[in-house]
């Protein structure tokens, strides 16, 4: 074990990339293999059902990464991130249905709409900080939810919007082409990852991280954190909109649930489960959450649960109850999330956060 640790410490710089690359290569050839994991996948890994589930996992991972950019990197607790996901999904759906544009120009137009919306709303919301920011973003997202539900002629109302496939290329349509959609979501995940990485390593990203820790200091130095925050807000929203468009293609539609506050809370749960501040934690959190959600839902309908007495049956048949409780336990007892557990397993120490808390107590 100690030798493993020494190896990991010595090869800190390239090891994550090697592991990440290996996972990526594995994920890329997965549709060509026949891997069965009973209880996790509904079938072998090349079947459309499994690929659909995996693609959904990857989408949630991408969306969680974009939320990580806001919450983990810049420290903005937004409760309205789902709005931009919805602008992507609904925007693309509406454009495809009402215009003669091909898929790519339509994607560009929907993306532009998301960027404009994010710039305007971000500029207003960022006038307040902290908890107020959370509430204001929530209010705007709620307004989006109301607009979607009140205009059934355009958005399909409670029924949701359906994908109009007339201008979508054939290789992205139909159950048999789920494989292509899966690869599309994988490419999207890589794009989102690289975009987030680029932002974090750029000068702006460092200013953003500094702002998260101490905004006053950053301003005293003479920098304007509001510009960086807005840039991060718009970038995260644009990425979320792209994920929303891929979601529309994958699910052949979108429902008003995508615009709801609950959906943003789901993202928050994912990022915290994965470990706040960790890029791959967000990815793992997204995958684990989606699998858990799917499995718990089918568990809830199973005979084993139906036979239990009421006091056990009712809580266990509600996936959100289990996930919510799990979330509370993670926040209380594992502040580092999955990434924190992995880190302490590798380094043999408690998580960074715990160290920081101890430092604060000492000082």
């Amino acid at each position: 074990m100690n030798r493993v640790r020494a190896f990991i410490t010595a090869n800190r710089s390239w090891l994550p990339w090697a592991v990440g690359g290996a996972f990526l290569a594995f994920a890329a050839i997965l549709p060509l293999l026949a891997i069965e994991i009973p209880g996790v996948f509904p079938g072998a890994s090349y079947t459309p059902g499994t690929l659909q589930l995996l693609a959904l996992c990857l989408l949630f991972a991408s969306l969680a990464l974009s939320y990580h950019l806001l919450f983990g990197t810049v420290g903005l607790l937004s409760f309205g991130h789902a709005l931009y996901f919805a602008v992507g999904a609904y925007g693309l759906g509406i454009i495809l249905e009402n215009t003669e544009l091909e898929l790519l120009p339509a994607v560009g137009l929907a993306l532009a709409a998301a960027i404009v919306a994010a710039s305007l709303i971000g500029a207003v919301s960022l006038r307040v900080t902290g908890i107020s920011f959370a509430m204001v973003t929530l209010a705007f997202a709620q307004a989006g939810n109301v607009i979607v539900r009140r205009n059934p002629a355009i958005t399909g109302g409670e029924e949701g919007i359906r994908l109009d496939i007339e201008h979508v290329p054939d290789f992205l349509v139909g159950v048999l082409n789920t494989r292509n959609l899966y690869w599309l979501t994988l490419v999207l995940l890589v794009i989102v990852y690289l975009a987030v990485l680029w932002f974090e390593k750029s000068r702006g990203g460092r200013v953003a991280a500094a702002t998260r820790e101490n905004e006053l200091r950053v301003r005293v130095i003479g920098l304007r954190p509001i510009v960086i925050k807005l840039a991060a807000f718009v970038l995260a929203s644009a990425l979320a909109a792209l994920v929303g468009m891929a979601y529309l293609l994958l699910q052949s539609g979108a429902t008003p649930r995508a615009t709801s506050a609950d959906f943003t809370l789901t993202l928050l749960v994912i990022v915290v489960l994965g470990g706040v501040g960790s890029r791959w934690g967000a990815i793992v959190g997204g995958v684990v959450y989606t699998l858990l959600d799917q499995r718990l839902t089918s568990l809830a309908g199973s005979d084993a649960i139906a036979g239990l007495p009421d006091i056990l049956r009712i809580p266990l048949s509600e996936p959100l109850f289990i996930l919510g409780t799990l979330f509370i336990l993670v926040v209380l007892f594992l502040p580092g999330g999955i990434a924190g557990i992995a880190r302490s397993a590798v380094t043999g120490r408690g998580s960074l956060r715990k160290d920081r808390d101890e430092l604060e107590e000492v000082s």
Partner: protein
Amino acid sequence: MSTVVLLLITGLGLGALYFLIASGLSLIYGLMGVLNFAHGSFLTLGAFAGFELARRLDGASWGTFFLTVILGALVGAAVAALTELLLIRRLYNRHIEQVLVTVGLALASVALFEGIWGTDPIYVSAPEWFSQTTEILGARIPNDRFILIAAAVIVLLGIVFFLRYTRFGLVIRAGVENRSMVTALGIDVRKAFTVVFAIGGAAAGLGGVLASHYFGYVSPHLGGSLLIFAFIVTVIGGLGSLAGAAIASVIVAVLQQFANFYLGGTGDLVVVLLLAGVLLVRPSGLLGRKA
């Protein structure tokens, strides 16, 4: 004229409902810096407790109604105090984590309510008088609005009295001003935290029972949908300001009613626009202190 009066009084009734939630949110935030996402669940639980009691007794009598109101407030207070003791207390001064815990609690509790009472709205029975109307200046006002307004006024006066004339109130007011100073003087602020949570929970539970009469039903999502407007109210009024919450509740609800009637059901959007406008002019809210 009669339409305006009707909208105005209905707006006041809805505003009273918002205030019952927002007062607790605002007090809790002012003293502890905690944004309580689970506040809507306190309200929903109060409403369900009232419904269960009314179902067992005679739902149409006034005695039952008062009993359900008291039970709703007690249940709300008990659950809120438990939440504070078991979950929030462990995370003092870690505001983001506190928000996260209440978010988890909100998700889990709504799912639990769905499991117990189902997702469909359940209609509640009320005394005969509730479904009748009273005529004021030619407008026929549903009577439940008056109950709501009276309840909100009583709660507002009660909280103000409590804050002004009791020892705990003194500690809470001092704690809102400067918590470390109060602690340094040797006063245990933590007890005040539990008390504030219990008061907020009681107001929310009471609001839950009244909301079930206002809307005519209870559902697991009753609290969540009201909570968002309560958030807007607290931001517009100024976080931590009780008077601000009261004024903003009335403004928001009346505006919402008028926009819904005259601008074709755009009440919710107008409220969000109002929020954006207030933030552009006064980021700290109407009566909020400068951050």
